[in-house]
């Protein structure tokens, strides 16, 4: 029985509403990996937002790729599109005081949601496309239950070496 990480890949055309398909796949995977229902929902919601953006900002009919790396201690989701990209640093967190007074009108919550919902977010974007990489880790207790002899790092902060290279 192996602890090796598993890589799955899901390609979808940039079509409204199709994000439900990779989302259902990842929901099944995350549950099976032992994430708590609340945490599964966080992953589902973050992936939904990332896929919706990838579809929304796709400028061609080229597929959006969802690359899933299931590791012993967590799950990495990469959502890759071939849109014209953006500068992630230019996106400021929402101003809740202003919002409470005048409302929202035009979106602007997706990236904020993603950052709050998963443990680690990395965004690489250029004029050739965008990769949003979202990592969520299993709590230590789940790890020690399922594999008491594991030697893999269990803390999010220890795990950067497990990240796949882009």
């Amino acid at each position: 029985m192996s602890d090796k990480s598993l890589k799955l890949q899901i390609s979808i055309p940039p079509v409204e509403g199709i994000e439900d398909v990779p989302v259902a796949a990842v929901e099944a995977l995350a549950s099976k990996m032992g994430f708590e229902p609340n945490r599964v929902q966080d992953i589902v919601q973050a992936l939904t937002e990332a896929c919706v953006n990838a579809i929304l900002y796709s400028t061609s009919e080229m597929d959006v790729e969802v690359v899933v790396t299931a590791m012993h201690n967590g799950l990495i989701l990469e959502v890759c599109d071939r849109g014209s990209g953006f500068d992630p640093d230019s996106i400021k967190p929402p101003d809740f005081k202003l919002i409470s007074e005048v409302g929202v009108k035009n979106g602007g919550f997706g990236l904020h949601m993603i950052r709050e919902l998963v443990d680690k977010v990395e965004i690489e974007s250029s004029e050739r496309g965008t990769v949003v990489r979202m990592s969520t880790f299993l709590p230590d207790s789940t790890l020690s239950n399922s594999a008491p002899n594991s030697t893999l790092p269990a803390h999010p902060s220890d795990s950067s070496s497990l990240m796949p290279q882009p």
Partner: protein
Amino acid sequence: MTHSSFLQDELKISEQIDGDRVILTLFGALSVTTVPYFRQAVQPYLERNLAVIVLDFEGVTKIVSRGVGAAIDMAVQAKKQGGKLRLENVGKYGRSLYIQGVHLVADVPELEGFEP
């Protein structure tokens, strides 16, 4: 992005009026595609200056941030007119709603363990 005839998200809204209160029950997806309908369907109730507009999320199958954004706009408008927006049966979507600050403008069921 393109549209497809057979993968469309759907949203249905049923109405139940009770004095100066209305309960709008949502069924389906609160997504990019259904938000325009969501805004348009709720607007007439906002314009009636009801005391409370309840959005019942019992039948919601998907939420995206822009859908929640629309609910925030509705809450702000209701508040300005002296009414309020209340969200019920938010279930597993509670955390997403709080992260977007819906609780700052609307009545939302308390969420255990949420740290803003």
